[in-house]
């Protein structure tokens, strides 16, 4: 097993997903299975290979630094679970 139970809980915490003990047990074997399977990439020597970043060489475009959008606060908060006067409302963070 490349992933143990504690690691499953640690990753779930990093990913901000609450999981139960039963889920952790299942995920332990599923994640290990997937990671063991991708380990076949170790057969390849990639020491002198550049990572792929583009399909075709393309220069990133520049544009003028100017406001092109905005003034739509009502649209932005329209789908918020909780909003107040164009602010997103979240549980208290600072005591």
């Amino acid at each position, binding site marked *: 097993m490349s992933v143990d139970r504690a690691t499953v809980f640690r990753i779930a915490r990093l990913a*901000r997903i609450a999981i139960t003990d039963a889920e952790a047990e299942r995920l332990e074997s599923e*994640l290990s299975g997937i990671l063991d399977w991708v380990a*076949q*990439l170790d057969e390849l020597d*990639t020491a002198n290979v550049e*990572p792929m970043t583009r399909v075709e060489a393309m220069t990133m475009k520049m*544009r003028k630094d100017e406001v092109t959008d905005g003034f739509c606060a009502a*649209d932005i*908060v329209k789908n918020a679970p909780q909003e107040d006067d164009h602010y997103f409302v979240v*549980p208290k963070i600072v005591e």
Partner: protein
Amino acid sequence: MTDLTDLTIADAREGLAAKSFSAVELAEAHLAAIRCANRALNAYVLETPERALDMAKQSDARLAKGEAGTLEGIPLGIKDLFCTKDVRTTACSHILDRFTPPYESTVTANLWDAGAVMLGKLNNDEFAMGSSNETSFYGEVVNPWRRAGSDAPLVPGGSSGGSSAAVAARLCLGATATDTGGSIRQPAAFTGTVGVKPTYGRCSRWGIVAFASSLDQAGPIARTVRDAAILLGVMASHDPKDATSADLPVPDFEAAVGQGVKGLTIGIPKEYRVEGMAPEIEALWQQGIAWLTEAGATVKDISLPHTKYALPSYYIVAPAEASSNLARYDGVRYGLREPGKDVLSMYENTRESGFGAEVKRRVLIGTYVLSAGYYDAYYLKAQKVRTLIKRDFDQAFENVDAILTPTTPAPAFAAGEKSGDPLEMYLNDIFTVTVNMAGLPGISVPAGLSSEGTPLGLQVIGRPFDEETLFRVGHALEEAAGPMAKPQDWWSKS
């Protein structure tokens, strides 16, 4: 008059121009078909009949004035991954089931600008993560095709399973879809339809719910190669809102259809002859080779030595990018919120309740491979393997114009048959995922029926931004295969 839902887009375009029927009649015929079919097939997660009729009326007005666009009055289904202004867009996830975008994706905006009519939003695997449409929060889609002598439900493929099923069952003339590892081509193969994944950068990703940003591409599913070419010509555009969108002119794809394959060299990669591949898939492939040879193409054996590493590297890159993209679903700005005792538990409860099992699995894998100390061993390694996969194709394309492979290792499987084992499900994408990893264009064309009486597809892979050759070769295969059988209508209930 023939059934309006059975027309191709090319025929419907002519019929509308000749005033044989109106855009409203065409839309009404489809809306009626959807009403009778959707309970059985579950292809649409949202029907928009009022909007459809309103758009069709406007199309009729433009047709009358001689101002028709390329897709004037053509009724389409839209995968629920495309944001549609003021129309619920969910990616078929519980976490977005109350999301109504205040903006329109570039691809759908292009379609509406060309006069197309929206029938509704189509089902898909949750966040496009799946190969069977079984991970959708809104339930599975049923393939209109069944095995001969059986009424057991088959999957329509995924993730664009609603798109493929709707096109095959005559519930729209064409549909939008997206493809990250095979999500257009595999469902097209499973339903006897044509699916095109264009070159990365051909269609704007702006306004499409993101899964894996370096792999995602939008494309069409249609019933003929010509229809797919017509749709792609409208969907594709350079878009300053997507920095990865290619600033290249969009060719007249439809003009490529029918140009024939004389003078083309088609590569046959030996690495696609995988262990355990059904003999009928091998036979179909040989049939495709024979068809193209008879049509005047030269066939050549080629080698793509890193093929077997495409799927494992995909299952690093795609989850890694997904875990990053899906971090935005935190219960604050949009979507579901589940309360918690503090902000952290609010995030955790929201994502626990909002994401399904497959999405969680991929977010967790992605989080693991990107976590401290693992980046080089996994993500960087996988991106280097992509370079090797791409290099294989670059070398092959020095000697061939296109590559022919089967689309899938087997025909459509039964619902529930593969959902127990994630790895077994992932293997469905073995022939399609290489194309995404290298950013190339690919098309799946129906080429025959399996021994079970269900559709099988052949895939053609092309050079970057050379979709035209795909349409030439795809059309030659389509012509040689003859008219595709239709699924028997068992789903309509009035």
